[in-house]
């Protein structure tokens, strides 16, 4: 498996391990609609973001130590083509999500519901980004 595919898997796993529980907490706990600032939820979000950063740092260090040559090599033309494809796919998902959150949700929601919907759209866009990246590397795997 190519180094860049491994980093794609790492990002997907980090996302699942941190924002999976975050949205599980959000979905199972009642959040007061006008309770801003909701410090408890802010702490949960901060913990999720911090854990994601730690997993990514540790994962990149581990992968870099296991294949130092590949980690130092700049992306070649196929890597860049795959990156372009994955980022453009994620861009459309993010734009659609933000139109939904910013244009529709203010009419029937407020407060943390909108904030969490925006975070969810960013997470979905990131999942699409790394999902397409991994899929492209899988299709080209030898």
């Amino acid at each position: 498996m190519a180094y860049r595919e491994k980093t794609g898997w790492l990002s997907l796993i980090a996302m699942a391990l941190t924002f999976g529980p975050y949205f599980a907490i959000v979905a199972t706990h009642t959040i007061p609609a006008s309770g801003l600032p909701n410090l408890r939820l802010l702490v949960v979000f901060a913990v999720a973001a911090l854990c994601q950063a730690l997993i990514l740092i540790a994962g990149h260090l581990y992968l870099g130590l296991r294949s130092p040559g590949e980690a130092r090599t700049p992306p070649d033309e196929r890597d860049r083509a795959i990156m372009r494809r994955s980022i453009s796919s994620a861009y459309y998902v993010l734009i659609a999500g933000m139109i939904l959150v910013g244009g529709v949700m203010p009419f029937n929601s407020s407060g943390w519901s909108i904030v969490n919907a925006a975070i969810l759209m960013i997470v979905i866009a990131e999942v699409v980004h790394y999902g397409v990246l991994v899929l492209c590397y899988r299709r080209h795997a030898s």
Partner: protein
Amino acid sequence: MTGSVSNRMRVLRFLNGEMSQAELGQRIGVTRQTIAAIESGKYSPTLEAAFRIADVFGVPLPEVFTWDANSTGSQGA
């Protein structure tokens, strides 16, 4: 639209002392995985990379890559 790029890279590597994919990749500035993807027809290289590959083998470009108008390719990023 039908058509795909086919190549003779495997044969040319063999004729050049069984050059490895990693060595060819190193000489043109791409990874071994990219050479494998090009060789298996899963990725079409840029024109620049195609010229570099032909240059490594010391042959003109059409001796490495050919356009097959009748086949249905499965290339893409």
